[in-house]
């Protein structure tokens, strides 16, 4: 494809009549090479500026701060690995790491499997199915603060759920006062809110599964469960990996659900604190320890990358 620059260059270089034919020229005149390297950068500049200012700079800044004793209002000094050493002896850090890890273990399998089953249910073309698709997606668009508060009211000692449990003779359950029940309740909210989002991803993947495969399996005598395991699951496996990766990262960085349900102190005696809640607690405010909070952020980053690599590696092994 010729650019206007290339056309100008060719016209200017036309040989005089009778002159011997010029030697064959390369397809990439020098003019093009001079122009091209800058143009893409100019097009990308606005995006790069935004990424640089709002992602790259804060990220690098966090990395640097992790090795300082910086406070909100006091510039820090380099302290080497002191912040990381302190982490090792900070009980709250280990509680945060435990809870964030538990969150991944509890939430990810549910968010990989349940939306797939939901997608299979609403995939069928039957009258009124659009209503159910929309209904399942509604929690995704709802504000997490509103969702969190609604669940707090429902799970309260005098809330709807406990009223039902008391009515059927089970008695009151301390969903919001027991450290483990509180964490599991928050996991439940995360799964409930995320179902619709991942369901849409699965719906797109299921649309690409050839119907003939199901028909052939049915002809061979495979039942619904068998067809699900041998046709559907292999066909959407790469989507399951994607969902697993996205859900793992989101679960490890959980903040809002736990903060709203367990309160700013992180549940009874802080036992439901997650790592990101800890970052917020120690790093913000006028006396915030920015350096120490940055060190925790770096740990979150490293674990996040490790989780992604783990999921993708598992996927590659399956491919091999």
């Amino acid at each position, binding site marked *: 494809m010729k650019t206007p620059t290339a056309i100008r260059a060719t016209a200017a270089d036309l040989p005089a009549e009778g002159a011997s034919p010029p030697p064959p020229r390369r397809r990439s005149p020098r003019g093009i090479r001079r122009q091209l390297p800058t143009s893409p950068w100019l097009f990308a500049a606005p995006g790069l500026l935004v990424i640089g200012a709002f992602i790259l700079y804060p990220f690098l800044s966090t990395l640097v701060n992790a090795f300082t004793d910086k406070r909100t209002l006091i510039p820090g000094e380099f302290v080497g690995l002191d912040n990381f050493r302190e982490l090792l002896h900070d009980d709250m850090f280990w509680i945060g790491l435990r809870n964030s890890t538990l969150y991944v273990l509890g939430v990810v399998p549910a968010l990989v499997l349940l939306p797939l089953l939901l997608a299979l249910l609403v995939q069928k073309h039957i009258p009124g199915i659009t209503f159910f698709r929309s209904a399942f997606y509604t929690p995704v668009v709802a504000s997490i603060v509103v969702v969190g508060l609604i669940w707090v009211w429902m799970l309260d000692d005098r809330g709807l759920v406990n009223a039902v449990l008391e009515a059927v003779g089970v008695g009151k359950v301390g969903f919001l006062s027991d450290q483990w029940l509180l964490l599991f309740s928050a996991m439940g909210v995360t799964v409930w809110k995320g179902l619709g989002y991942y369901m849409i991803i699965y719906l797109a993947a299921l649309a690409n599964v050839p119907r003939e495969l199901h028909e052939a399996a049915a002809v061979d005598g495979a039942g619904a469960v068998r067809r699900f395991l041998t046709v559907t699951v292999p066909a959407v496996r790469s989507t399951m990996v994607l969902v697993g990766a996205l859900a793992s990262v989101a679960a490890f960085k959980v903040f809002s659900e736990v903060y709203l349900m367990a309160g700013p102190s992180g549940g009874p005696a802080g036992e439901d604190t997650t790592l990101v809640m800890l970052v917020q607690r120690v790093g913000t*405010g006028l006396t915030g320890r920015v350096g120490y909070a940055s060190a925790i952020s770096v740990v979150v980053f490293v674990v996040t990358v490790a989780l992604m690599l783990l999921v*993708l590696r598992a996927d590659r092994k399956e491919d091999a």
Partner: protein
Amino acid sequence: MRISRRALATAAVLATVLPLSACGGSDSGSSDASGKVEGKITFQTWNLKAEFKDYFNGVIADFEKKNPGTEVEWVDRPAEGYADKISADAAGGTLPDVVNVSPDLVAPLAKAGLALDLDKEASEYRKEYLDGAWKSHQIPGTEGTFAFPWYLNTGPVFYNKKLFKDAGLDPEKPPKTYDDVFEAGTEMAKNSKGKVAALANVPAIEDFGRYGVPLMNKEGTGFAFNDAKGVELLTRYKKLYDAEGLDAQALTATPESAGHKFLTQSVAMNPGSALDLANFKKDAPSLYKNIGITDQISSTGKANMYVMGVMVNSQTKQKPAAVAFAHFVTDKTRQMQFAKQVAVFPSTEGSLDDPYFTKQDGTDETKVRIAAAESLKTAENYTPVLFSEQMKVELKNQVAKALQGKQSPKAALDNAVKTCDRLLKQS
């Protein structure tokens, strides 16, 4: 290879959702407070615009009229995240010239040299304010006073007469001291078979103060609430918790959730302010019919008070105008006007003797106002100015461990003091 590079890039992007902003430098202030009052200044308030827009526009107009050549730009910030907003402004060098603060916000700003020392720059105004209020913005270990005292607040304890009666307690004799509270709470839990709790909150630093526990050492260099009296208070709370006299969700309660519990009549007592009466009337008429009002629970005879202040940014380029405006907003006339707008109390000398705070008119609102104004004459701010939000969380978590029986009250308070002392040194 392609996938893992993408994965790394994605993870890098995701990890940056936790950015922590860098501190910024700041220019030094340029003028003396005694110079000519002129120029443009910025005034920041704490969640006041929605309710009091006309009042503040009037104050600003009056100031500008009195001081030709001045211009005041008013900005208001929401209550949520107010400290974070000030942090960001202070770190970025964009702190407004005049800022509405509380003592715990002033302390770090003063330590960072961002709060003007009024003892040096505006000492002539000191006599206009109540002595205790003026001192509330002094920081242990730092010379000076760093904000004009503004409005004071204290509040009664509301109690539910019906729940008291149902539990076999005399609704006309509400608890006044912690001894009364522990006795009534245990009785109430026993008689209601654990269905009604006396309180919805675990003890906070103010409770230790009102129980008579020394909160800091005399030098102000360390915390001292782990002494025998503090351990005694926590031990008694543990007994109340075991008897189900504290709400089951007290360990994670916030002031808002505790208020909600009182509104839904699942706890019998809750501290509040005169503002709450209107809410009860509107949101919980059945509670309002049974509402009882009593003094703050205190074993020292003194109530806890909250103090608001108005700080001048030491880096302001319009120091005379900023000091003059901060004083104007907090002077006797303006404070009386503001107190008549909302249920707060002036910190200026003699204002609490105004008939507005002493003369009954038979309404509940006036009864609460007069009782609060009376208690303010001896009240103390039981939250040390150096007690940060993180320290409050540490204390709450250690108290929760003691109540759950995971550690003894003594060990819990020792741990809390140790952590708070460490945070104090690091601040």
